[in-house]
């Protein structure tokens, strides 16, 4: 999709990418312990935001239940590493296996869901309403199901361990997550720049026309939906490890709308902008809730309204794309 934009977009992005990566690498060196704890979470949220950007920004699928996949990943990770899934024990409970399983579960669930949604030809607000309902149902199930902790969720999720080496040190964990985040970025970037990405852009811009050209649009939508869900599942699995617990709010309506806001604020049509959107909102939230214990939600809401009015493509999206010359 890059080739449709003027070179300055590339130049800006080329400039911004190493700056963001550099900041992420350097910041912990000058911050305190809590900054690292915060940043670790923010990067995970950033990965989650990128997964939604893939589905919403690049394929035009407005999903109001994206946290379902995040939560599925988180619960799978927690249940597997805590050896709570019958039949899965021994080496299968290792972190790497558990993460793979989380990705797989989220992707398969999304593929099945997508099959019904997209072959059922749901789109626009109807798709939004159905996915919203799924998020609410998922949260209710998690609250009701006592084996997986019910309303309380599951606590004491074991730390990441790779080949017997446990990552307990906060800094190591952070850089590990940043590395995964970078990998996810490259992976998603590759997808959207591939011929497949171009087809997605076509589906997004005009689905009927894409179909007329002979593309099975539902097929492509299912693939990108499942891919987005897989990335969200990965983010969820990492989140379970980072916060050491999971709860039903992680797969519900609340987080689903939050991630929509991050991505809309950052810029849904650019991966990096979505990532930064998540970082920005979370940082503002941390900052505002410290300064104004009681009024910060109001300020954040107003900030959102202002951004939607002045930067319809998102704060970072607007900065990165070139404005059309009138």
């Amino acid at each position: 999709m890059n080739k449709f934009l003027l070179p300055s977009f590339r130049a800006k992005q080329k400039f911004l990418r190493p700056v963001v990566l550099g900041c992420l690498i350097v910041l912990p060196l000058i911050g305190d312990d809590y900054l690292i704890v915060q940043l670790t979470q923010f990067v995970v949220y950033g990965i989650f935001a990128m997964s939604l950007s893939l589905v919403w920004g690049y394929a035009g699928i407005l999903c109001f239940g994206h946290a379902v996949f995040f939560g599925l990943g988180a619960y799978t990770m927690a249940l597997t590493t805590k050896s709570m899934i019958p039949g899965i024990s021994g080496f299968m409970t290792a972190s790497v296996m558990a993460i793979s399983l989380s990705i797989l579960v989220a992707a398969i669930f999304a593929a099945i869901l997508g099959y019904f949604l997209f072959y059922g030809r749901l789109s626009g607000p109807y798709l939004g309403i159905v996915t919203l309902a799924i998020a609410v149902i998922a949260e209710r199930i998690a609250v009701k199901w006592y084996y997986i902790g019910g309303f309380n969720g599951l606590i004491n999720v074991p730390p990441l361990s790779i080949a017997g080496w446990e990552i307990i040190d906060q800094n190591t964990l952070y850089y590990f997550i940043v590395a995964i985040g970078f990998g996810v970025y490259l992976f998603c970037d590759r997808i959207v720049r591939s011929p497949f990405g171009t087809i997605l852009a076509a589906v997004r811009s005009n689905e009927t026309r894409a179909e007329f050209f002979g593309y099975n649009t539902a097929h492509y939508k299912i693939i990108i939906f499942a891919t987005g869900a897989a990335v969200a599942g990965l983010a969820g699995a990492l989140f379970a490890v980072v916060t050491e617990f999971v709860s039903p709010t992680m797969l519900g309506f609340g987080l689903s709308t939050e991630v929509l806001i991050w991505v809309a604020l950052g810029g849904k049509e650019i991966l990096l902008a979505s990532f930064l959107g998540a970082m920005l909102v979370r940082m503002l939230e941390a900052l505002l809730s410290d300064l104004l214990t009681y009024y910060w939600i109001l300020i954040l809401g107003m900030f959102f309204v202002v951004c939607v009015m002045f930067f319809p493509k998102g704060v970072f999206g607007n900065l990165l794309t070139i404005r059309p010359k009138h």
Partner: protein
Amino acid sequence: MREKLEWIVVLMVILSFGVVLPTTAADKPIKIGVVLPLSGGFEIYGNLGVRGAKMAVAEINAAGGVLGGRPLELIIEDNKTDPKTAVEKAKKLILRDKVVAVMGPVSSAARDAMTPVAEKYKTPLLYGIDYEGGVCNPYVFLYSAIPDHDMDKLIPYMAEKYGKSFYIFGYDYVWPHKMTEAIKRNVDKIGGEIVGVEYTPFGVKDYAPTIQKIAKSGAKILMLIVPGADGFTFIKQFTDFGLKEKIKIVALASDENYLLALTPDQSEGIFTALPFLASLDKAEARDFVARQKEMFGPDTVVTWATGSHYGLVMLLKEAIEKAGSDDKEKIIANMGDLTITVGNGPETMRASDHHMILNMLIGKFTGGELVVEKDLGAITPSNQCAGKSQ
């Protein structure tokens, strides 16, 4: 214009990075972290807890602080009634602000989520809300009424006066479930009968089907484990059905907040069991209420949550003085077997299981007031660590 706006936003982003970075402050004050719900559903308890803690800190500082002149400082965070946020805020307070203790939260779900954080960073967690009992952890201190305090006394009292058939209606999460177990245990003990148990999700607006079921069940007493806004909705509808005379309501965790949300007619005749009531006719109770009103205005509601969080700060202060240090491990070691008086006689934090010996009251809503129906005196709960290792 647009260009400028964009740069302003970029500047804000950079600024937010800057403020997220730590600020170096003189470490003279001893900091106490507070993680309470100030939004999201349980704020009626959170806000009052904050007031209790604020008053305790103000009084201690006015009297010269602790450890020879060091003031206490509260750092308050909103957990939005959400366990995930509670964990984030607890970590922030411990790692960034270097607090000596974390106070809160309200829901058992959030408390269980925060407990591993307290363990990991070896920081005392001070909890001040009534709960289901059974926590046994060296880092958790509970200024709470547990079923041993309330249900064990309230059930026989109600059964004797109004009949032995009970209906239980509660929220669908761990606290109401555990309270149901405690209620059943006590009803069995007196040879009574549970004629129905029902759980409900948050945010239901129409309770008519449930109310009809309760009316048909033949229950004499309804145990209502739906605190807060949904509880108000339920009680209003229950009153409209005209069942108040036939079936007595025991509303768990109901306190003076209910007087604001319900009309005298709606609240009339509801029972509760608490360690403190603002209308209690004791010198220390009158004094405590007067001090709250002086600090926060004459319309301030004073409840048990105010008292328990006030008490937790006082216990912490005693422990710091006894330890002679603000070292967290030393504070924990000195926090047990301390006795203080807040609003209803002397109360003791036990070293053995970190639970309280409390003076309990049965309260009844009468004519738009919450009055003391019966003073149960000091109640020593069973050891919550029995059969467990702390």
